[in-house]
């Protein structure tokens, strides 16, 4: 396998991990706008361990993921008690805070960052993707997956049915942060150099776009979105100047035409009974939410 193919495969795998990680949070209906922060935690955590403490990469990745999960749980616990608008604000502020702190922290090189991480292999990325996909297949078929879906569809009804919504949502957010952290660690050990600037709002938006583009209904939709959007910049180099505009317009057009993403059915339409085999429930009546009736 040529070095180029290898790099493309690793990059694609990391993008898929990012999209899947984000999907876990989104599957409870919680959109984070600073997910790059968890990437940064995973990247910096694992890089410190491999560079300065001499840990083997897999262990360092796991440790980075744990730190990331703890941070995710903390942010989630603060934010998920509040309404959606606050979650957006808090995740955004959290990622800015993290970047500010990393810029100040001389131990990790401040603004110029860390240098010299290597070791990410295709096998390693592949193992991570397979593990996460396996976890997601189990999750979406478990009662926990059902709880996620219940929270996404209607928090009050979920609460009424005995789902501990804050606990479940915080758990989902922490898991999501952990997967994103692993992806960040893998990316750091592929690209040799990391600095706080890599994990700004741009990166967060790209993670969101990966996930939303493919569709948030099924996790494989998010993965396909990540593969497609991740490969485009590699094979269309000439457009480099226009990527910001293309990505921005993609958000705008997608939200008008297909807010559910390219894959997945419209919420207004039929409930996807046939496609999700685990649930043969009768079709629920269309709900009218009282707060969503502005003319």
């Amino acid at each position: 396998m040529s070095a180029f193919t290898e790099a493309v495969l690793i990059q694609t795998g990391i993008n898929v991990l990012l999209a899947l990680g984000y999907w876990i949070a989104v599957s409870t209906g919680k959109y984070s706008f600073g997910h790059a922060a968890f990437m940064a935690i995973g990247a910096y955590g694992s890089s410190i361990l491999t560079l300065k403490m001499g840990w083997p990469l897999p262990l360092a990745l796991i440790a980075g993921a744990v730190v990331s999960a703890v941070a995710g749980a903390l942010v989630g616990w603060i934010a998920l008690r509040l309404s959606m608008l606050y979650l957006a604000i808090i995740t955004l502020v959290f990622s800015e805070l993290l970047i500010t702190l990393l810029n100040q922290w001389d131990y990790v090189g401040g603004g110029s960052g860390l240098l010299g991480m290597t070791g990410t292999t295709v096998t390693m990325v592949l193992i991570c993707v397979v593990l996460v996909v396996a976890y997601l297949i189990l999750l979406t078929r478990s009662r926990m997956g059902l709880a996620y879906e219940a929270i996404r569809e209607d928090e009050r009804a979920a609460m009424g049915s005995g789902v501990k919504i804050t606990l479940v949502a915080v758990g989902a957010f922490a898991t999501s942060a952990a997967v994103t952290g692993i992806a960040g660690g893998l990316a750091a050990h592929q690209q040799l150099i990391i600095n706080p600037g890599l994990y700004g709002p741009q990166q967060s938006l790209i993670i969101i776009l990966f996930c939303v583009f493919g569709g948030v209904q099924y996790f494989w939709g998010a993965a396909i979105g990540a593969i497609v959007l991740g490969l485009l910049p590699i094979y269309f180099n000439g457009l480099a100047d226009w990527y910001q505009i293309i990505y921005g317009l993609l958000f705008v057009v997608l939200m008008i035409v297909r807010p559910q993403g390219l894959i997945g059915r419209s919420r207004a339409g039929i409930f996807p009974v046939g496609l999700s085999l685990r649930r043969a429930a009768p079709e629920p009546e269309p709900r009218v939410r009282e707060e969503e009736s502005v003319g």
Partner: protein
Amino acid sequence: MLVQQLFNGLLLGATFCLAALGFNLVVGAMDRLNFSLGETAMVSAIVSSVLLNRLEMPFFVAFLASLVIGGLLSVLVYFVSFKYVSRDYPNASILSSLGVGIVLTALVIKIFGSEQQVIPDVYPGTRWDLGPIDVTASQLVILVLSAALTVGLYVFLERSRWGTAIRGVSDDVTMSGLLGVPVERVVILTFALSGMLAGAAGLLTGLAFHAVSPLDGFATTLSALIIIVIGGLGSVKGAVVAAIAVGMVETLSVVYLSATMRDIVVYIVVAAFLLFRPQGLFGRNAGVLERV
């Protein structure tokens, strides 16, 4: 020294306040955040600086232009990111307006370049010595204009017919509609007002720092959101108080700690609010769900 710094903080707060009020208006009307307001402010400021520098227009023309551009952009965002976006997806409008923000920033960089644009002083050289503080003409302009806009907005919302309609729609849109309020037109008016406030905020912040960068949009959004968290979502009074407080905290921490500590101090304050008083100073219920 301290009084002068407090005055500088007040100025900074006054410009923050305008942007935060812009966000608050949209939150009231749609229960959604318009994430492109920061970029709207930036575009207004950049175009104004072009008017001031290349066409040598007087300041008040540039100011009016910033209001008009801000208002128009914001109405455009309403149609693109809110009206035609399905309400079944609570995050769709946020994502869409973020997308608009990215496009605006990229377009401005394509057209005007990525370097900072200078915003010249108003009446350069004029300054008054008022005992402990020293005021330049620009600072006076910033203070007067932002105070006028804030008070004007408050009076408009509280006293006028359309202002009452805006508050009605923000309280209960279905009921307002049933009572004969033309909801659609009120919402467009709200977006126009919020864009005008953002546009003014962009120009006045630029005037305070003598420069505006195409990458300022995100910072404006962030500081406005911080103020909204502290002041309370949807509260005019809260936004004013929080903006002035944040402005003063920022200036004082630059002077007495260091420039790099400024952001950290502000973030700590925000975190404390989120933990102990999530509804902010004067906020309505922040949607704190009862625990099961």
